[in-house]
């Protein structure tokens, strides 16, 4: 036992509850340690209490709303919960530091990077101006930021997301704290950037011997970075253990189900080569955006033309699923929105059963829309919060003249199809969970009896276990009703599971297209290969419960 070693962070039976007359417990007595030189991953789905844990450790809880009610949080043996605000303020930034999820919003947009960086030194060290500047440059170099003086003079919006996250890491590690808390630091980044940042954190942690508490929902990231794992659920620690032990032999059902829900990167064998008719053909579709907001005109800048979609062509056959994958800004969502005519394409044709719908209006558009339905990314926003879901569901059929009784009957039917209780029809969206709402959104699309469903990141906002269920539902519906599906996602694992064909996009152009099994297994294009390579947790086979490459024992 390493009994002599004081943990950098030791959480002991921590209880946290909301304030107010009717307090609810958010953390129900959790305990774990983070030792120096160790990366501990705190894994859990939304509502598990993992972020609250990190805020307690930093003494950053909004105390009017949430406050610790028991236990201890020891930083190098010193209890943060009982320390004075002045003391925790002195510790923050110096002894414990934090990197947040959103690099876009975690830096102050109106202050120069240099100043924000210098503040760390100003707050905790007595240094002269030039020394401080020098220290900032060194910190930037340590996180491999190019041209530190330029970064120093920049404002946050002038840096890329990855650069900003590097600045955040530089800021956190500037004073060589004993503990670094990283709260989903790569969730908002594209996979390729994510991989770089993970590597950087690992590297710096090894150099400085820092203890890292790494919070994530992504098992893939856990595989890539953790020494030990701590699985949380509903404010409780389910189990703790070294990463490979825990992944290979999870002790609790919850962990097991969590692991089972992770889609495999390897697509299943293609289910037959049944080539149905082409229901949707898109040819040479382009969409240009003119970025000319008044603020840009403020500095006399001419309108900036962005080609979001550039000459994209593809076919969708009956009963098949075409996946469009790509990183943010690749134009994949714009393709979907153009197909749905939520955006008007700049050029190109969209043939629905041979009829071009790229410019139709009025009745023709209305007829086309009935055959095409969409499932949006965020189920919280795609349902009108002010009306009962029955109203949302029947809106479409009513528009096409169906009478109420028949709609109600069908709505109840469809509710059952998507796995919801028809009695819930009179409830409001906020009375459902995120996964349920996505099912309702799917039900709404189904009621229109479309031929094609366009799913735009339809599972990205969902927790991994829910995600798996919704994917199954979509796939099942597609098969049963012989629907075609256009499935837009950034997640290669999801694409691998649901798509028959995959189209990889980058900067508005198609880089590679083909059957999923081929594209994902043997990428021809280097970009596709890089994407696959960057997918987190590639080294672990979640299905087999062992590292990739070890032959499956028969």
């Amino acid at each position, binding site marked *: 036992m390493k009994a002599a070693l004081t943990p950098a962070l030791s959480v002991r039976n921590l209880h946290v509850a909301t304030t107010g007359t009717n307090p609810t417990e958010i953390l129900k007595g959790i305990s774990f340690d983070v030792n120096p030189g160790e990366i501990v991953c705190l894994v859990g789905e939304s509502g598990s209490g993992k972020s609250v844990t990190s805020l307690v450790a930093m003494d950053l809880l909004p105390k009017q709303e949430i406050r610790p009610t028991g236990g201890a949080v020891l930083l190098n043996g010193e209890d943060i919960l009982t320390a004075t605000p002045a003391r925790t*303020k002195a510790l*923050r930034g110096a002894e414990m*530091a934090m990197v947040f999820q959103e690099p876009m919003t975690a830096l102050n*947009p109106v*202050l120069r990077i240099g100043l924000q960086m210098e503040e*760390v030194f100003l*707050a905790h060290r007595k240094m002269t101006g030039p020394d401080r500047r020098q220290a900032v440059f060194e910190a930037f170099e340590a996180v491999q930021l190019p041209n530190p003086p330029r970064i120093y003079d920049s404002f946050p*919006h002038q840096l890329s997301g990855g650069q900003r996250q590097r600045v955040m890491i530089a800021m956190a590690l500037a004073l060589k704290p004993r503990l670094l808390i990283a709260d989903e630091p790569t969730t908002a980044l594209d996979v390729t950037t994510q991989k770089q940042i993970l590597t950087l954190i690992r590297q710096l942690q090894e150099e400085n011997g820092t203890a890292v508490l790494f919070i994530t929902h992504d098992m893939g990231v856990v595989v890539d970075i953790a020494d030990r794992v701590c699985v949380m659920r509903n404010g409780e620690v389910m189990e703790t253990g070294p990463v490979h032990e825990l992944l290979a032999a999870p002790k609790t059902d919850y962990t097991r189900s969590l692991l089972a829900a992770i889609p495999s990167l390897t697509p299943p064998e293609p289910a037959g080569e049944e080539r149905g008719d082409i229901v949707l053909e898109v040819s040479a579709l382009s969409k240009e955006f003119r970025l000319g907001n008044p603020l840009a005109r403020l500095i*006399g800048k001419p309108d900036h033309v962005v080609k979001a979609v550039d000459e994209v062509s593809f076919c969708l056959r009956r009963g098949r699923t075409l996946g469009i994958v790509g990183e943010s800004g690749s134009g994949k969502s714009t393709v979907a929105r153009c197909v749905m005519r939520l955006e008007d394409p700049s050029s190109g044709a969209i043939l629905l059963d041979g009829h071009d719908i790229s410019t139709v209006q009025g009745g023709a558009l209305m007829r086309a829309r009935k055959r095409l339905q969409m499932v949006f990314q965020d189920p919280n926003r795609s349902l009108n919060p002010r009306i009962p879901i029955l109203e949302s569901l029947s809106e479409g059929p009513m528009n096409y003249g169906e009478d109420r009784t028949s709609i109600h009957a069908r709505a109840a039917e469809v509710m059952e199809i998507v796995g919801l209780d028809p009695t819930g029809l009179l409830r409001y969206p906020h009375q459902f969970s995120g996964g349920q709402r996505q099912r309702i959104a799917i039900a709404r699309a189904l009621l229109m009896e479309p031929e094609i469903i366009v799913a735009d990141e339809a599972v990205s906002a969902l927790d991994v276990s829910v995600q798996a269920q919704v994917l199954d539902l979509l796939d099942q519906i597609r098969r049963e009703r012989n629907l075609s599906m256009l499935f837009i996602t950034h997640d290669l694992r999801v694409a691998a599971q649901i798509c028959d064909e995959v189209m990889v996009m980058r900067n508005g152009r198609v880089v590679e297209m083909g059957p999923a099994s081929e594209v994902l297994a043997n990428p021809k294009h280097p970009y596709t290969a890089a994407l696959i390579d960057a997918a987190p947790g590639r080294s672990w086979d979640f299905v087999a419960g062992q590292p990739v490459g070890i032959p499956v024992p028969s």
Partner: protein
Amino acid sequence: MIHYFVKRLLMAIPVMFFVAVFVFLLLRLTPGDPAIIIAGDQATQAQLETIRENLGLDEPLLGQFVTWMGNLMRGDFGVSLISQKPVLTLIGQRIGPTLSLALAAMSLTLFFALPLGVMAAWRHGKLLDRAVMIFSVLGFSVPVFVTGYVLISVFAVNLQLLPVQGYRPLSEGLVPFLQRIFLPALALASIYIALVSRMTRASMLEILQEDYVRTARAKGLNESVVLFRHALRNAAIPILTIVGTGFAMLISGVVVTESVFNIPGLGRLVVDAVLARDYPLIQAIILLTAGIYVLINLLIDLSYALTDPRVRYQ
């Protein structure tokens, strides 16, 4: 910048044209007769006819409008019907006190409202927050003239600390100027403090939820640095906006305040002009205040660039 400025000025033209047409029609289609004011109320019909003819008030409306617009284009705002002085001269005499009063009120407002709003947001939900908010809503709830009377009777009549009325231009010395501008500015600011501190609080509350505020705190910064360096600058845009749109409110306060404190400013000029049906004068003042409003809002839009670098470079 220049390009944007010019573009915005061009956009203001239809706005100002609408104002011009609106005001012109409002004045001409409503009853009232400047000739009576000139002739006095003991004048007979015959005396009035003579004067009306002389003022050109018997011409058709469209003709009057075209003449007026034509003159406006040449920068000629016309001559007051009543005093026969050029309208611009009259406004020139009166705009100084009004601007001084408005600026003084605005300075007092910012001096009180920003710290109050920041403190209230910082202590959100606590006693201090409640106190600041009640205090500011109270300022909003008492009519300006009542505030004015109370201030006069306390500070000027009873304590005799300050003059009871009047205005002295800054050119006659800072002390007399400040002595006389302070109470009216305070009375006027009382509404405005309420408005700006509420907006500051609301904007700060929102900003304090931002991730970068948490980042700043995570760096171990002092709360004052967090509030004023990190939060307030980001909260500035809504505050600036309310300062701009509040201009209209400032004018309405000015009209009443000027009466109570006997300040010879635009507010009284316009009330007098309306009561006297001095058409060219009313038209000019309303056009002018509308112009100032448009201009202030333009300046505020431009000032966004100073508070937010994204605006400057994007």
